[in-house]
Every structure is written in C-alpha cells, then in structure tokens.
C-alpha cells in the first residue's frame, strides 16, 4: 500500500493544464515540421508555417496556443495498491483545473448546465475518466479538448455486415463533414468495437497516443496508414483552404464487441492536439 495526498494530484493537474495549453508534445511538433516539407499547396504551406510560428510565440511569450483552452479531460490510471488521503480525489482534480485555468490565464469555457448555459468562471468541472490498474503508481493524462473539432466528432452504430469498408466510409464521412470547421490538419482518433460509450472513450484515448506511434495490431496499423493516405487525398488541406495535409495521423483503438454490432466513434482533434502526461 502506498499513500498519496490528494493535494499532490491538485498541484500536478494545475501545472499540467498550463503546460498542455502552451507546449505541444514533441511528436506533434515533428509532424507539423514534416508537413511543411510535403504540403503541395502554396497557401497550405504558408498556413503550416504560421502554425509553427504560433507554437514558437505561445512558448516564448506564454500565450495559449489556441484561445479555446478546452474542457479539461483528465485520465487517471490508478494503481490498485494506492491509498489517497486528504479528501476526495474528484474535488482534488477539479481544484487543480480551477487553479490551472485561473492562475494560468486560460480561457474559462465551461457552462454549468447545457441548456441554462451559465459560465462556471473557473473551467470546472473536468471530465474525469478513472481506471484501476495493477501497481502503486498513478498515471495522469491531462488533455484539454477544444470544441471546434469536438463538435465535428461522430458515433456510427454500424452493422456487422458493413465490415471494414463500412468503417472506412464512416471515418472518411466524419472527416469530410468536419472539413475546415475542425481546424485541419487534424488528428483523427477512432474507437472500433465495444459498446456505444466504450467506442467513444476509445476514440478519445486514441488521441492521446503519439502521432508517430502506430497500432501494434497488424490490420489496424494498415487501416491507420490507408485512412491517413485517403484523408490526405480529399484536398481539404491546412485550414480547409486546399492542400495535401488534412490529417497528421489516424490513431485507432479496438475492443471486443457484441455479435450484433460494429460501433465506430470518430473523435476529431485539431492540430492543437494537447496532452500532458505524468506518472507519480
């Protein structure tokens, strides 16, 4: 048994909210640099260069990469040997988000009720996903999610007979419908299988996988590569203004499903695919 004070979780989450909104992970930066070299459209290249400049300014001048600093999505993978002390873990996470967004000059984009729509003014509550894992460590992922791309995400409850072609069509449909609204070049997170909610969660988790890391399952890896190529042939391009860089990666996660179903979720993320990861 290992004891961890919830105040440590609060402190970490605060820092991670600020870090994720000012610095992209190395794999995202490299994907953007690579895209500048391969983009065929002159305006597309100009936009990609502006995105590189934007990242530089964000880091050097402490200005969030995007004004939509997102709703804070937090994954907590908790080792089963851990005992938390000092209060509720949920309150501790939300306190970290509150401090990060208030002290870090991040935008408060959360309304308390979906229809009454009054801003909570501190960006809480977070969306928290817990999982219990072996061991005595806590792995925290903070992934602030902007809603320009979130709004273009889809769940398709396909039939088994739709097969892999149905899956490809669903993903391409979601990407084409998103077009310029989702701030391309995008990262496309996909969940295939499970249930209605499981496939959506897998799609979200897939976005936190580095964009240069392909699936370990051979057919899924092939599917990721084929879809990336197909998406980059749509012509949507950087900013949706035409070109060959519409997506930087397609990350697919899969899970067992029911004999009657083939759920597919497509969670689209813009080029500001933010995630900070820490293990304590």
């Amino acid at each position: 048994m290992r004891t961890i004070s919830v105040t440590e979780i609060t402190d970490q989450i605060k820092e991670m909210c600020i870090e994720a909104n000012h610095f992209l992970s190395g794999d995202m930066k490299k994907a953007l640099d690579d895209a500048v070299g391969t983009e065929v459209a002159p305006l597309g290249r100009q936009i990609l260069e502006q995105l590189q400049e934007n990242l530089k300014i964000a880091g050097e001048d402490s200005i969030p990469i995007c004004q939509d600093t997102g709703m804070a999505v937090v994954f907590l993978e908790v080792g089963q040997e851990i005992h938390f002390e000092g209060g509720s873990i949920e309150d501790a996470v939300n306190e970290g988000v509150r401090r990060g967004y208030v002290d870090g000059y991040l935008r408060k984009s959360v309304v308390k009720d979906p229809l009454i729509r009054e801003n909570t003014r501190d960006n809480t509550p977070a969306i928290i996903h817990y999982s219990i894992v072996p061991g005595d460590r806590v792995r925290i992922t903070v992934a602030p999610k902007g809603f320009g791309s979130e709004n273009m995400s889809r769940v398709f409850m396909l039939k088994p007979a739709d097969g892999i072609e149905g899956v490809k069509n669903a993903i391409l449909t979601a990407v084409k419908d998103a077009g310029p609204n989702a701030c391309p070049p995008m990262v496309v997170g996909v969940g295939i299988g499970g249930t209605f909610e499981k496939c959506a969660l897998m799609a979200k988790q897939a976005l936190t996988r580095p964009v240069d890391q392909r699936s370990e399952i051979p057919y899924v890896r092939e599917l990721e590569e084929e879809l990336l190529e197909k998406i980059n042939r749509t012509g949507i391009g950087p900013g949706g203004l035409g070109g060959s860089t519409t997506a930087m990666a397609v990350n697919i996660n899969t899970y067992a499903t029911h004999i009657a179903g083939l759920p597919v979720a497509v969670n689209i993320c813009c080029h500001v695919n933010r995630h900070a990861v820490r293990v304590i």
Partner: protein
Amino acid sequence: MDKYINVPLSDEDARSLKSGDYVYLTGTIYTARDAAHKRMYEALERGEELPLDMKHNVIYYMGPSPAREGRPIGSAGPTTASRMDKYAPTLLDLGLKGMIGKGKRSQAVKDAIVRNGAVYFAAVGGAGALLSKSIIASEVIAYDDLGTEAIRRLKVKDFPVIVVIDAKGEDLYANAIKEYCRE
C-alpha cells in the same frame, strides 16, 4: 493576391475583394460569438437598439483567453462561424460588411453576403497566439457579464485573413478542395 484594407469596410473595398485574396486588416473590428449573437438577436426581436451599429463594421467570431498584465489581449484565434449562421443574415441586412471566423457557412448566409455586397474572411484556426500580435487594443463595450463572450472593440494592425466568400458568392473552401482533391 496580398491586399491591405482599412476597417470598418467600405462598400467599394468589400466589392473589390476576391475569394482567395490574402488580406491585412487595419482599424477597428468587433468581437461577438454565440452568446452575444443570441442576445443581439433577442434585442432586435424586442425592437431594441443593438450595442453597436452594424453599418460597414466587421465582426470577428472570437472569445479570447485572458490578457496577462500589460498586454491588450490573450490568445485570440477564430471560432467556428457556422454556429452564428442563424443570426448572420439579419445582421448582414442591417449593414454588417464583414465576418471573420473559420469553417463553412450556410446557403442563407452566402445569399445574404451576395445580397449585401459583404465578405466572409477566415483567420487561421488554432493560431491564437500569432493572431494576438496583430491586436493592439481591446475594450469590452457590451455584455460584460458574458466573460470571454462579451462584445469587444478591437484595434487591429495588419490582421491577417483570407477571403473565403466574396461579394459575388465565390467560396474558397469549395473551390480549393476541388483543386487539390486526388480521390
């Protein structure tokens, strides 16, 4: 083609801009996004005055992150324009000359753009830190209680935008995608 244009936008300037032009805007523009549009729309329904005159003005669909001390504004990139499609034709018919956002517009908005000789510009989505450098002053002029969604008057200098839909109804999103499509 690169162009340098003053805002508010004159009828002549608006009609001179072509879909695909890269434009640097200098002058005064106003921010408004979802909640401010809803309020303005409801004010019009009640027969009340709007907090700003639409004539020749440009609205930037944007809600900034908070400014650090000594700076005019925080991160300041465009939000998705289609969420304002319900309200935009009414504002265009009242004289609104330009809109800055990102993403596709409805046919009703395109028709109102053509009818009024207006322009829809895109700023680069997700480049809020870079775009903030072209904003030299910011002041809340209405709906302060809406926080980031309040209406702000911005002074901009060489603010970079691209003409997506011009006064003739040409749409860069549709045309450019066709040009680069390899399916």
